[in-house]
């Protein structure tokens, strides 16, 4: 037999012995596998869900206006007068200044906030509205139905639903109510020359910061908000929320770490005797170490593979029913969406080194200590 064949055969015998030994303590090892796999599942679910939401937010908000200019009065957002639009139009680097009309409406019927908006690119007929999918679901409305809202003066304004926005856009449009400019102004009592804010389109990304500074010079009472700031805010929110999910779990994680350490490092009397006997019948220290490496590797790899696979299908197959309520919030109008699967090599490697590696190290150190001592002493 060649040398390589000999090494392989030796490893196969070691694996056979290890698995047979593990089967003798079946309940203990299966229990450990379940808890270990569960921990990997929770960690991987949070990791996958957070990064998928960040990815989705990045994808969507990459299309948002480069700069939004708000007017501030006494620290609060206020309506922006028409003169402000003219003041920004001449700034070099700004392709278009688009006055926006949007706001919120609280609907007491379903106890939900809608985002009302005048679409800049399409002319809606007064008296008609286009609604978001979650709003349509909450009100049980579809195209052709009528919805009425009480305006600022108490008068009811009725809208005929022209269309419901596609379900595919729900992450951005769940609570939208698109209405004509005339209806919007009447509903909220907004004068003709006022807008909610201004969207600035700056085609060159390197000019955005300079344009923002020029906006502040031209309009000291305004606040330019850059698209990058909005994206960073969303990143921070999802990081914060994943930390909030992991915080209550940290106790469980710690408990598992102690359990794993105890299981891996504190050899039981049986195991010590087993090592002693193996040494007495001629096993080398390296054989014992390899046998324990097989045991640790089998449990931790299996826990990693099963936990990560289960987390993947939990997040991307079932839309994370265990995590979504915490990560999304408590809105009445939930967008009902599926996340696009995004798993990176970095995520998998991070998970692997966080879960498999420490367990293997914890397994080997005490076994090495037991294996290098005299068999007679170990068995006593």
């Amino acid at each position, binding site marked *: 037999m060649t040398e390589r064949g000999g090494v392989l055969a030796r490893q196969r015998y070691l694996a056979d012995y290890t698995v047979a030994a593990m089967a003798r303590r079946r309940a203990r090892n299966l229990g450990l596998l379940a808890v270990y796999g569960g921990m990997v599942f929770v960690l991987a679910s949070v990791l996958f869900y957070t990064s998928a939401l960040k990815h989705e937010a990045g994808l969507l908000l990459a299309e948002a206006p480069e700069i939004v200019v708000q007017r501030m009065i006494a620290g609060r957002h206020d309506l922006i007068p028409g003169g402000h639009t003219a003041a920004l139009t001449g700034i070099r680097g700004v392709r278009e200044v688009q006055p926006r009309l949007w706001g*919120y409406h609280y609907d007491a019927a379903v106890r939900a906030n809608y985002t009302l908006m005048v679409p800049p690119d399409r002319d809606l007929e007064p008296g008609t509205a286009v609604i978001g999918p979650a709003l349509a679901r909450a009100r049980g409305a579809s195209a052709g139905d009528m919805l009425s809202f009480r305006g600022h003066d108490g008068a009811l304004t009725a809208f005929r639903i022209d269309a419901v926005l596609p379900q595919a856009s729900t992450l951005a449009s769940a609570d939208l109510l698109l209405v004509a400019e005339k209806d919007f102004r009447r509903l909220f009592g907004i004068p003709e020359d006022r807008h909610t804010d201004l969207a600035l389109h700056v085609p060159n990304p390197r000019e955005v910061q300079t344009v923002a500074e020029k906006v502040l010079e031209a309009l000291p009472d305004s606040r330019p908000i850059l698209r990058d700031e909005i994206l960073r805010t969303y990143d921070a929110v999802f990081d914060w929320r994943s930390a909030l999910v992991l915080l209550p779990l940290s106790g469980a994680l710690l408990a598992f770490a102690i359990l794993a350490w105890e299981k891996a490092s504190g050899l039981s009397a049986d195991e010590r005797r087993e090592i002693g006997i193996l040494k007495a019948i001629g096993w080398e220290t390296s054989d014992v170490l390899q046998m324990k490496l097989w045991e640790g590797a089998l449990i931790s790899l299996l826990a990693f593979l099963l936990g990560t696979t289960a987390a993947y299908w939990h997040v991307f197959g079932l839309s994370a029913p265990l995590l979504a309520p915490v990560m999304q919030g408590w809105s009445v109008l939930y967008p009902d969406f599926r996340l696009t699967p995004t798993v990176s090599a970095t995520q998998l490697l991070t998970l692997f080194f966080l879960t498999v590696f420490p367990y293997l190290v914890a397994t080997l150190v005490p076994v090495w200590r037991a294996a290098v001592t005299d068999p007679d002493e170990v068995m006593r």
Partner: protein
Amino acid sequence: MASGTPRHRPRSRPGDRALIVLLLASLALAGSLLHAALPRAEAHTQHAPMLVRDLGLTGLALFTEARYTRHLGLGDRHAAFRDHPMALEHFPSGSLLPPPRHLHD
């Protein structure tokens, strides 16, 4: 060998069985990663960005209960104290959301 002697049937070895389980679990994960890598023409990856561009939207409809949670990036500096400086936070997601990062800077 006598014709009546039961033929020895090689049993699968415990180590091999464990490796098969490990291999199956690896295949399951590899299959999931393959599923993630599949090119998909899902409608929501096209519709939603288009809508954001057309309407000039600035926030996701994830937390719609309050204005400063619906449009996170646009919240003003006093959003959480909109009624008066000692006002308590009304909405659960408001207390779970950190203030926008640009307000820290």
